């Protein structure tokens, strides 16, 4: 059985007589449907996880990489002078696109989640933060650190690399794991359909012998089984995918203020990806049944 357009046309059109030659099997049919649905449901989640992890890795990699912070801890009287000196120094540094001291209100907003809204920031020895945005080329952190040390003794440069790198690596690994899960799910569907098809072929040995006796070619016999399992996998996977998409839609959305925690879901054209699950499941079932049928039929006289 080849994957030719004619085969697909024949599959889609169906042959009522050919469908009837294999006796209906209620229980295994329902099991195949169920497994296909369950696997499609899981596949939708694996894809959602993978895509969300990919988005995380991308956003942490791109957006955070270009920002760093200079923190100035100085006695109250010197704070303004040191901040101005640091800003001046940063503006002269190549690779720094802009540097801006955070206002008191902004600093308060940053601390609010930890200390509550009524914190009198002004009366506390809170360090001054300077937000540094890099150009695409970036700056040399070691050189900048040395110069800051020399000119602004209270300044500490934090380029975020320390905590950003493991997070990006973790997100990238999560992304990979998601795709590996999707592949494993596809392989499981293939294995399950192969087992079910082998069982069906064995259970219908008499049907195959009769068909062979009256002159049926292997393609005719195989098609009766292949069509059945392909349609089952397609139907089951469609149901499972629909349920999976509904479940993803019902997930609580990651709020914008949650910052780097992107919502577990699909964005924009990514919604098209889960729609590929049913046809892929059908293709896997088609190939698995065709291979199983060819092996079993080839062993007969």
């Amino acid at each position, binding site marked *: 059985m080849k994957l030719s357009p004619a085969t697909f046309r024949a599959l889609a059109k169906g042959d009522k*007589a*050919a469908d*009837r*030659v294999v*006796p*209906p099997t209620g229980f295994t049919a329902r099991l195949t449907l169920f497994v296909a649905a369950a696997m499609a449901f899981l596949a939708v989640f694996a894809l959602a996880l993978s895509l969300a992890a990919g988005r995380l890795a991308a956003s942490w990699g791109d957006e955070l990489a270009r920002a760093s912070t200079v923190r100035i801890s100085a006695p109250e009287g010197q704070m303004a002078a040191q901040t101005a000196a640091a800003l001046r120094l940063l503006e002269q540094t190549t690779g720094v696109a802009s540097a801006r001291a955070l206002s008191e209100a902004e600093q308060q907003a940053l601390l609010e989640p930890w200390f509550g809204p009524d914190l009198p920031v002004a009366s506390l020895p809170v360090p001054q933060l300077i937000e540094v945005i890099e150009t695409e080329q970036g700056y040399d952190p070691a050189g900048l650190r040395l110069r800051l040390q020399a000119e602004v003794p209270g300044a500490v440069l934090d380029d975020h690399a320390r905590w950003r790198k493991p997070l990006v690596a973790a997100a990238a690994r999560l992304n990979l794991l998601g795709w590996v899960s999707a592949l494993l799910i596809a392989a499981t569907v293939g294995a399950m359909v192969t087992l079910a098809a082998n069982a069906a072929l064995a259970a219908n040995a*008499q*049907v195959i*012998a*009769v*068909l*062979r*006796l*009256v*002159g*049926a*070619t*292997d*393609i*005719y016999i195989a098609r009766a089984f292949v069509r059945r399992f392909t349609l089952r996998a397609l139907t089951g996977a469609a149901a499972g995918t629909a349920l999976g998409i509904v479940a993803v839609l019902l997930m609580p959305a990651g709020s914008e203020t949650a910052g780097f925690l992107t919502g577990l879901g699909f964005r924009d054209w990514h919604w098209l990806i889960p729609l590929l699950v049913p046809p892929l499941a059908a293709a896997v079932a088609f190939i698995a049944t065709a291979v199983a049928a060819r092996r079993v*039929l*080839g062993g007969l*006289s």
Partner: protein
Amino acid sequence: MIELENVAYSYGGGELLSDLSLQLGAGSFHFLTGPSGAGKTTLLKLCYGALRPTSGQVRLFGSDVTHMDRDAIALSRRRVGVVHQDCQFLDHLPVAENVALPLAVAGQAVPGQDENLRELLAWVGLTGRAMALPPELSGGERQRAALARAVIMSPEVVLADEPTGNVDWEMSQRLLTLLVELNRMGKTILIATHDLQLIRAAKAQVQARVLRISNRRLQTAGADL
């Protein structure tokens, strides 16, 4: 039609058949006889390509079986009608559909076939049982249904393995009459049987040759019957 030339066949142990030659010409009527286990069924299987000879040559309609692939064998089955000793059917389909199965399998099912099918079922006396399922049939009815299925494609050769094995004398007479009628229509017939009475009855109606398998070889018998 079917030619066997110096054919030998073994199931792994010693040879069951050896150095066996046979020609089934168009319109001939042959009986194949011999004790149980002598290899009658094996010889029939060699004749329709279900088994391949361990040595020698089998030609179906001029092509060497050893060079035919599975599909070629399947296509040759459409020109050979086979009636087995234990006829097997698709048990979930009614008799009429089972009889028409070769047409469906060959992609030759046409809307106008119903009339032919009815005639064929009437010819084997199964008109009233057309909608019955095969497990509901008696032994004789199964044999006649198998015969109808074997001839619906209008094959050139009909091979029957003990077609009267599990039916009574009257029924075996009816089956024989059907096979003789087919022979008069020009079909080549080969019947394996150990029922000598049946062979005698047939000789009264048709010019039949009797072949006997003994000591792994094929002998022409006949004068003694």
